[in-house]
């Protein structure tokens, strides 16, 4: 239960940071918070009470004692995709700082209507 609540709070905090904050780095951190919240949500969907990791490492482990393997695979993919997006975002922020000399998003408005 706490995992669901935690992931919702992370998503909400991340969205707040992206929309309200003016510093570019804080916007990036907000994007990362949203991504982490979603990944936490995916993993906590798959939990089965009393289950263990889905690896048949020794004899005697039965399939009924294990958690769902699909959300774990989905989270693996989602984490890698989020890491790539973050790398690109950091590259953009570095170049924006080079061109404009400031990290304030209100000043980066050379493309108007």
């Amino acid at each position, binding site marked *: 239960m706490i995992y669901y609540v935690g992931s919702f709070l992370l*998503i909400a905090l991340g*969205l707040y940071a*992206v929309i309200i904050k003016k510093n570019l780095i804080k*916007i990036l951190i907000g*994007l990362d918070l*949203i*991504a982490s919240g*979603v990944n936490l*949500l*995916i993993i906590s*969907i798959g939990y089965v009470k009393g289950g263990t990791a889905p690896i048949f490492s020794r004899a005697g482990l039965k399939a009924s004692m294990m958690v769902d393997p*699909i*959300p774990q695979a*989905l989270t693996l*993919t*989602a984490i890698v*995709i989020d890491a*790539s*997006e973050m790398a*690109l*975002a950091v590259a*953009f*922020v570095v*170049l*924006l700082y080079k*061109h*404009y000399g400031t990290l304030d998003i209100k000043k*980066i408005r*050379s*493309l108007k*209507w």
Partner: protein
Amino acid sequence: MVNLANPILLVVIPLFFTFLIALSGSFLKSGVKYLPVIAFALNLVVSLALIPEVVKNGMVIATTAGFKPPFAIDMAVDKLGLFLSIIASLLGFVASVYNLFYIDEEPQEKFHALFTLLVAGLTWMIITGDIFNLFVAFEVTSIAAFGLVGFHRDKGAIEAGFKYLVMGSIGGSFLLIGIIMLYAATGTLNIVDIAQKTSHLTFQQKLFPFAMIFTGLGIEGALFPLNAWLPDAHPAAPSSVSSILSGIMTTAAIYAIIRLTNTIFDFNQIYFFLMIFALLTLIFGEVSAFFQKDIKRMLAYSTIGQTGLFFFAFSLNTVNGLQGAFMQMVNHSLSKGMLFLVVGGMIMQVGSRNIDDFAGLGRKMKVSSFFLAIGAFSLMGLPPFFGFWSKLKIIFAALQNANAFLVASVVIILLMSVVEGAYFFKLLQVMFFGKQEKDVAVKEASYGMLFSVVVLGTVLLIISFYPSPVIDFMHKAAAEIINKNYITLALKLGGL
């Protein structure tokens, strides 16, 4: 040896060539620019080879890993998906030939690799039958597009790319939340399987995943008010990339919304709400395009308007409405793709994107201006071009079971067509009858770039003067969507 009519090849061949470009970049140097041309030529051959199969069976299903879905990922291509993937391969081929002569700044190998990956991702989004695979394809497209928008590395490109990145990331996260909601509710990830298991969900339980998925896909699909990134990003990219982004990317995202709404979320209460969104998008796009001085920005706003138009036709939820929507999609992809390529050549000659600097080009760049006029006329909906048939179909479909609201929306559509005509005629007037102030040495674009434009223009002219095959095909595709044949065909052919 290998049966060519396998939709997986449409994705695997460009991926193969992308990694080949990465491998051979260091010793082939600029020779890598020929590899995307080969990749998309092969793609075109495969998609044409799929036509007889789809016409015979109604759908082609290809499995991966040797297991039957839903225990493995499958690709399911029906008539609409096939048509869109043919258009994607055609636009990719033509744009990659255009790239041979258009891209001359470094770094070249990375550009061609990302370009191939962009079109591969778009085709992937169209043919997949699994909802998480749709998310992965969406991310492949987005991340390739982020890098390509920032290719010129000047102030405008970086700002546009960053705006696009922030909105695209949030869109991807929302899409993922929607997918996880569907997984929690049904326990499976195959589209056909989910469609069969959603009968026990309440309206509220279907509404929240729909809202999340709609927001996520709508950010890429240029729906109001989620399209704030589009008027900055499409002009800032190199012209061949703009033609792919405007031509297929918005169409592929709207196709994904259509597919998911039709199979999984089939509730009737939302269509009115979608219609409002579509009309707002149409008004916002066309009116903003009228005030633009930058030609690529004008075309980008025109894309937003056209997307609103075919989304409106889809939300009518009748066979004629869907047929009009698909015809408009085809018209827009071919015309807008061609327009961006032509305009790219002109910008290269004139050196600026301002419309006033284009004065008099109609007399000096005759072939390019001719095809620009054809593209503009087809988008406006003038007879005898294909745009006329598609707009007529949409208006006819709207007036079929008319109530006051639908009549009002038809009036809005006609008004917006007039606005569209106004700004395109303004452009054509400046080009053909304007006077050049400074004496700029302008010659016709090089033959390679003209080849791409001529190919697209010829296809557009062919379907304008012989529209019956396309209209019939679209009618069958629309009937399939209304009758939810996607699910029945998939079950019959082993897609579940």
